[in-house]
């Protein structure tokens, strides 16, 4: 279907449904819920990076007026419960494995009393040697976090091999090697994770919280408390920033639920900012050794990489680092990648606006730029030389055809919008010594998503007045989920956008449709809504055919009506068709087609100014072109790209969580030290989309792919490449802070 034929897809331009409530301060996040008689929970955290917990004396806290209950690790010794899919216990009775790990929890009538009670709990620790550096942790004599080796994933389960690298290096004119290191970053959502947990009159446990995956919380709680999932209801109206931090069950929700059970009173909790930065999920540090074989004309003949991911103390998400979807940008004839994930006493790792792509994208696109620099070749020419994947190409690892590839269109369009050919100048021959210098940098990006094994489901109900309600458990985390789903259904059914409503989200008001992460919901829930909408459409056509006494095939769906194709004056309104029972109710489920991973592509071009006297980098202008299959709700697509770019500026230039090697403690756990970009750092951003003409297979959402995560990734190498273009220096680690720049320029 061409763009012109759509009524709403890519065209509907109204405001978000939730905007007015948010703007008036009326929309509730986890911390905004209150119930009579509620208790406030506080958590005591470990000051050590690694220590045995030998004894806990909570009598001082329990003696305080207003303190109602205390939980210690030893309460769980009889029946240890681990959080689903991880090595995390509810409270660790053997030992703490990272600074800030939960040790005890207390509830009191007042938050300040609860806070004070923490100081009255005496915990006896036996400090153990700790290891925080990923390469140190791999050594045989390193302190061990668990029985056996710290290496949790070895190359036997994580190697990626295509062709013959030995042959590739033999063909090469030159070999280039370097080591790159990414940093640890926390999501730092403005809304730290909060919850209110209560046993309500219906005899069920109700949880009000900010979360990206309500059903993940429900199943995690059911496992931990050993109660049926149907006795739990998780409510999440909206989430005060997710980005991967609030993806599933965490200790504090389970602890609050246990307290609610033990005291019979509602329990409220919110992570403090400091706790959120230390104990939330984190994008982890990766160390990669890269080696490229290169012909003088710019063709890469071989690529080898070893990647070491700092998996933190609990293994949850595989941190493949460099072996990401980035290997689907250039058709390298020979490559070999080995990945190791290693336990350390740092912090919990998890997705941050994609699992590993922001790291892999920075590494590979920085590497590509360095190779271009070696040959003094225009970085875009260099990339074009290296055979980018195009429509119809096959996956080199599996041999299956990749649907819908828009990378070449992205780079060509970005090049045009950024006036690259006019603006790009070769790298300076000597390092600049003072003043402000400008540079321009480019980066490509590929991202595969959909989190395929998770469910994708929605229920659509036609109301007697001809309106439609969508019920789905897909959380809205600020990415206009409601609007995208409503537009998809409205388009299929010929209903005006305003006549489609998405029911409020809780585990009671829709089936599990997986989490809102992995850039998946427009595709996943979107396809489920599409499947259900087509069922509704079919039933409407059947009813209309009976009513108008024509064959179903001769009917067309018009604006709120079904009409006869040959004679549009003969029609029946949708409202007439659904006014009386039996109601039209459709359940849609979607399973991704086998043997295909749908990928999105992007190219970012950044222009920066580097102040050689202060080392400050100012990102002036960014051009972002994304291949997302189909634009559904244009405004929010653009705001997603804006936001990704601004988060990427943080990763490239300033954000980092640091641990003190002397004590093992985190010392940048504040918004001043782990600082996100502010309003004044906003560059001029030009956004464009490539709407790929190929409809991906089994697509019911009008051909849309995902957009949530991709904008964060390519901006990072685009900025660092632009800095290199300005001052002639590539940096081996992130973030590129003023001190690194001044050092590189020989100023300090």
């Amino acid at each position, binding site marked *: 279907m061409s763009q012109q034929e759509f009524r709403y897809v890519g065209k509907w331009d109204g405001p978000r449904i939730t905007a007015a409530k948010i703007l008036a301060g009326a929309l509730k996040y986890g911390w905004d819920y209150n119930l009579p008689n509620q208790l406030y929970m506080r958590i005591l955290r470990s000051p050590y990076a690694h220590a045995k917990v030998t004894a806990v004396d909570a009598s001082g806290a329990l003696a305080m007026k207003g303190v109602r209950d205390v939980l210690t690790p030893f309460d769980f010794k009889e029946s240890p419960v681990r959080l689903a899919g991880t090595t995390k216990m509810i409270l660790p009775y053997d030992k703490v494995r990272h600074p800030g790990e939960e040790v005890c929890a207390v509830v009191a009538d007042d938050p300040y009393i609860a806070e004070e009670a923490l100081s009255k709990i005496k915990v006896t620790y036996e400090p153990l040697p700790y290891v925080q550096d990923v390469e140190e942790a791999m050594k045989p004599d390193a302190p061990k976090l668990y029985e056996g080796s710290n290496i949790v994933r070895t190359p036997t389960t994580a190697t990626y091999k295509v062709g013959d690298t030995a042959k590739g290096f033999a063909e090469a004119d030159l070999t280039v090697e370097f080591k790159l290191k990414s940093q640890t970053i926390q999501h730092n959502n403005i809304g730290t994770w909060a919850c209110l947990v209560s046993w309500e009159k219906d005899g069920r446990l109700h949880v009000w919280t900010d979360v990206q995956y309500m059903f993940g919380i429900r199943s995690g709680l059911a496992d931990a408390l050993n109660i049926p999932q149907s006795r739990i209801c998780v409510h999440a109206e909206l989430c005060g920033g997710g980005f991967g931090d609030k993806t599933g069950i965490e200790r504090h929700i389970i602890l609050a639920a246990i307290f609610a059970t033990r005291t019979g009173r509602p329990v409220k909790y919110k992570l403090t900012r400091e706790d959120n930065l230390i104990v939330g999920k984190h994008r982890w540090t990766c160390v990669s050794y890269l080696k490229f074989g290169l012909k003088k004309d710019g063709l890469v003949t071989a690529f080898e990489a070893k990647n070491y991911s700092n998996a933190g103390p609990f293994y949850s998400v595989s941190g493949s680092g460099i072996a990401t979807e980035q290997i689907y940008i250039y058709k390298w004839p020979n490559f070999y990648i080995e990945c190791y994930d290693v336990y350390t006493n740092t912090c919990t790792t998890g997705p941050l606006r994609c699992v590993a792509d922001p790291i892999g994208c920075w590494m590979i696109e920085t590497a590509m730029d360095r190779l271009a620099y070696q040959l003094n070749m225009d970085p875009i020419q260099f990339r074009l030389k290296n055979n980018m994947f195009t429509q119809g190409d096959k996956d080199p690892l599996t041999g299956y055809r990749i649907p819908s590839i828009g990378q070449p269109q992205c780079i060509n369009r970005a090049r045009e919008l950024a006036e690259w050919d006019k603006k790009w100048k070769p790298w300076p021959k000597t390092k600049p010594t003072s003043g402000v210098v400008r540079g321009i940098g480019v980066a490509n990006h590929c991202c595969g998503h959909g989190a395929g094994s998770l469910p994708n489901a929605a229920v659509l109900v036609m109301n007697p007045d001809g309106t439609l309600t969508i019920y789905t458990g897909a959380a809205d985390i600020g990415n206009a989920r409601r609007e995208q789903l409503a537009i998809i259904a409205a388009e299929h059914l010929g209903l005006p956008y305003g006549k489609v409503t998405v029911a409020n989200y809780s585990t009671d008001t829709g089936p599990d449709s997986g989490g809102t992460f992995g850039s998946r919901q427009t595709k996943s829930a979107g396809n489920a809504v599409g499947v259900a909408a087509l069922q509704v459409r079919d039933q409407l056509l059947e009813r209309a055919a009976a009513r108008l006494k024509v064959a179903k095939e001769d009917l067309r769906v018009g604006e709120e009506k079904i009409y006869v194709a040959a004679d549009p004056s003969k029609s029946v309104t949708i409202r007439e068709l659904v006014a009386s029972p039996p109601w039209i109710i459709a359940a849609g489920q979607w399973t991704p087609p086998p043997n295909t991973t749908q990928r999105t592509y992007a190219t970012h071009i950044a222009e920066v100014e580097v102040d050689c006297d202060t080392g400050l980098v100012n990102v002036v202008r960014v051009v972002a072109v994304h291949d997302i299959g189909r634009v559904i709700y244009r405004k929010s697509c653009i705001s997603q790209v804006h*936001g990704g770019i601004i988060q990427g500026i943080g990763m490239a230039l*300033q954000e980092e969580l640091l641990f003190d090697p002397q004590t093992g403690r985190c010392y940048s756990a504040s918004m001043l030290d782990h600082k996100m970009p502010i309003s004044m750092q906003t560059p001029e951003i030009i956004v464009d989309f490539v709407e790929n003409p190929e409809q991906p297979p089994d697509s019911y959402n009008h051909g849309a792919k995902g957009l949530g995560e991709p904008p964060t990734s390519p901006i990072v190498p685009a900025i660092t490449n632009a800095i290199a273009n300005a001052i002639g220096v590539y940096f081996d680690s992130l973030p590129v802070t003023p001190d690194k720049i001044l050092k590189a320029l020989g100023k300090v």
Partner: protein
Amino acid sequence: MAAEKVMGKKISRRKFLGVSTAAAVGGVVGGIIVGAVGGYLAGQAAAPAATVTSTTTKTVTQTAAATTMTVTQPATTVTTTVTTTKTVTPVPEVGYTSLITLNVNGVDYALLVDNRWSLADVLREKLGLTGTKTGCDRGECGACAVLVDGVPMLSCMLLACSVSGRKITTIEGIGSVGKLDKIQQAFMNNEGVQCGMCIPGIIVVTKALLEKNPKPTEAEVKEALSGNLCKCGNWPFIVKSVLEAAK
């Protein structure tokens, strides 16, 4: 001011945060006052006493340990004229509590508050005005900004007992779902919202900015909002919204 006699001046736990944020990287306080230094509105800290007419008077009692709110005189029709300099009866210190009065969004409250409670906590937990968000509780993110006598301040950095007698305007006092202010309307039309957590603080600071500077330039808008953090990074549309509201 009676309250100040007893409690001392406005209490700001981290006055040093109020430095100017001319440098783009790192500053987070920007247009909001933490204490009475820095930012474009610094001169406004000692605002002239405003005459406030309110139509309802509520008395809320609480004890330090109780979390439930009892409204003993709900929504009477008593009309009182109060000024910020005269309303306060001397503050008796009862253990850890103070009796204070607050005029919040035009409604007068008499409250017995725990001296440790911040204004943000009292607004949210005691008065149920949860539109004011607390992102950090330490003066870093700007989400909790409210107008104190018309000046944007971080309510997490103000002890409730230190603002007795003041006129407080929260996001709920700027506009409601059915009757949005023109700033809110501009944000709605220009995709100014993503997750929305930072938005109440941004609207409050924008309100103060446009009162003082009705036609700000893009650079002035960005500087005024430099004390508000937005992790969604929706700045291009936020700035566009503010500029449209100023049209």
